[in-house]
């Protein structure tokens, strides 16, 4: 059995190498090559990489269908967890829960996606922001999640802290995220916290560092963060500027902000 697996992995190796090379110039080709590597080697990790690559070239729904098909062909915890994450992102919590259970049955996923989806399922069942905050903190306390999952959890926690008025905690969270890697979203939150505290120079420095992000994204985050921090005028300015770049997004943000109320 071990020998068969080894032979399969050996045969899959060229596809993985070519997939890595192709990733530099063609995500679509890279996705197909990783998919071929998964077909030959049946390693869940290769399937996961293929799905992540497909996500760049296909719609989320198409990738979700693909993940389900892959699960039927060669079930693996990593793919089940990824499919669960996609289902959760699509708001289909029932299916996400089923897939999380399947991932657990198959032996746990190496990345920690199951924990993330479980958290999202639990969070979706409570409208109380404080309870969501508590759940997110509990997940953030876990030390065995992958960097991608950790980053998502920390970001989500940072936004919750900002919206709950825990500015100092939001600032520390953003600083922690930024201590690892550049992150315009964290820069915008940090900028907002500084602006809220009247530290204009620090806020300007954060804004300058966040300038590398696409303007629409930057303005979207600034509008949301400022609204959450109770900086209504700043949020309105960002929203007005966003209209120049992406009117449709600006409309969605406006609706979102209206749903959130008057901020702090």
């Amino acid at each position, binding site marked *: 059995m071990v020998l068969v697996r080894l032979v399969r*992995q*050996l045969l899959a*190796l060229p596809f993985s*190498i070519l997939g*890595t090379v192709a990733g*530099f110039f063609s995500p679509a080709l890279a996705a197909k090559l990783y998919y071929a590597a998964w077909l030959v080697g049946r390693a869940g990790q290769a399937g996961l990489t293929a799905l992540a690559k497909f996500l760049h070239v296909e719609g989320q729904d198409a990738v979700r269908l693909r993940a389900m098909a892959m699960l039927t062909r060669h079930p693996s915890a990593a793919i089940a967890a990824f499919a669960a994450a996609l289902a959760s992102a699509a708001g289909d919590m029932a299916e996400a829960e089923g897939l999380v259970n399947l991932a657990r049955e198959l032996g746990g996923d*190496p990345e*920690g996606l199951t924990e993330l989806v479980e958290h999202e399922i639990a969070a979706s069942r409570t409208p109380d922001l404080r309870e969501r905050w508590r759940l997110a903190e509990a997940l953030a306390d876990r*030390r*065995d*999640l*992958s*960097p991608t999952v*950790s*980053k998502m959890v*920390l970001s989500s926690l940072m936004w919750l802290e900002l919206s709950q008025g825990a500015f100092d905690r939001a600032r520390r969270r953003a600083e*922690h*995220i930024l*201590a*690892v*890697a*550049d992150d315009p979203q964290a820069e915008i939150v940090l900028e907002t916290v500084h602006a809220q505290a009247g530290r204009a120079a620090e806020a300007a420095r954060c804004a300058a560092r966040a300038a590398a992000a696409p303007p629409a994204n930057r303005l979207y985050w600034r509008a949301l963060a400022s609204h959450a921090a109770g900086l209504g005028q700043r949020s309105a300015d960002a929203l007005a500027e966003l209209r120049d770049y992406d009117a449709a997004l600006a409309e969605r943000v406006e609706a979102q902000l209206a749903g959130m109320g008057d901020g702090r």
Partner: protein
Amino acid sequence: MTLADALVFIPVLIVALTLHEFAHAWTASLLGDDFARRQGRVSFWPGRHLSLLGTLAFFVLRFGWGKPVPVNLYNFKRPKRDYLLSSLAGPGANLLTIGVCFVLMLLTRWTYHFGPTGAVWMGLAHMMLRLLAVVSAILAVINILPVPPLDGSKIWPCLIPGLKPTLKPRTTWLFLGLLVFMLYTGNLAPIFHAAVKTITAVMPVSEGKRVDYLAKQARAAIAQAEKLLDDGHDAHAADVRARAEVLLSEGLAINPHDGEMRYLRAATRSNLGRHEEALGDIERAIEIRRDDPIYYQWRAHILDALDRPDEARRDRETARALYRVAAQDDAPVPRPPSRPATAPGRSSGRSGRGEEEHAENP
């Protein structure tokens, strides 16, 4: 690399690699990041740390690599400091391995203190430890090079203020290609040679290794004396022989049971005119090895010099009989030296004995 080399080298490489990768994972876990633990990397089982591609590369390119330990920097309290520590842990583990190897090498260097079987095992253990120390030194050195994806590339961004400890994957692959090219073309060889030279210069030497070294030096001195004699520099040749005798005496002080060195010292002492001492040595050599005709021939020569012709004749007869037995066994027939009085160096090695023929009365 021969099969025998590979059988010794590969387990040592696997041990060094496993300790290196384990140290990364364990340190990360100690500092609060259990992502590597989740992936089963806090383990001494080599299978967890070997990369399929890296292992294949070893057989094709003559160098390989282990599976990189995944680290989640978000789990660290102080990402830069903790990432620095977990990155240093790999080369640090290699340095620690070298230290442990040195201590064990100090314990296993007494090659000849545990009898002939013990000497074989002690010699083998010492050799494996020596190789492990050398491989660990190479791993430590290569990994501190500031080239992605090596540990060194993770260390310097953690030390420079304002830099983030992460690099873009595209850059990593570019550097990886460059690194493979440099390894393949041997551009990094001087660095490895320097590491190996440094480590071997300070590592404990076993008795066996010391004896080998002394025997080699003594043979070289004997050969040099031969040449000097041929060129007519008799006085200088005597000095060189005296040096050879000192080297052989040092070797025999470590391992008095080395028949070959006894024989060489007997020949050297005889050539220096110290026949009584030479006789003692050659008799001990014969005690150690009774089937070597050349030992008897040398004793005959020494006995002649001591004016004991009857005993010398008996030794020559014994030597002749032993040559005949060797011939009947279809073994290559060793031939007696033509000039035992002047040339132990020529007859010191097994091949050297073939140069001289049927000169029973030097």
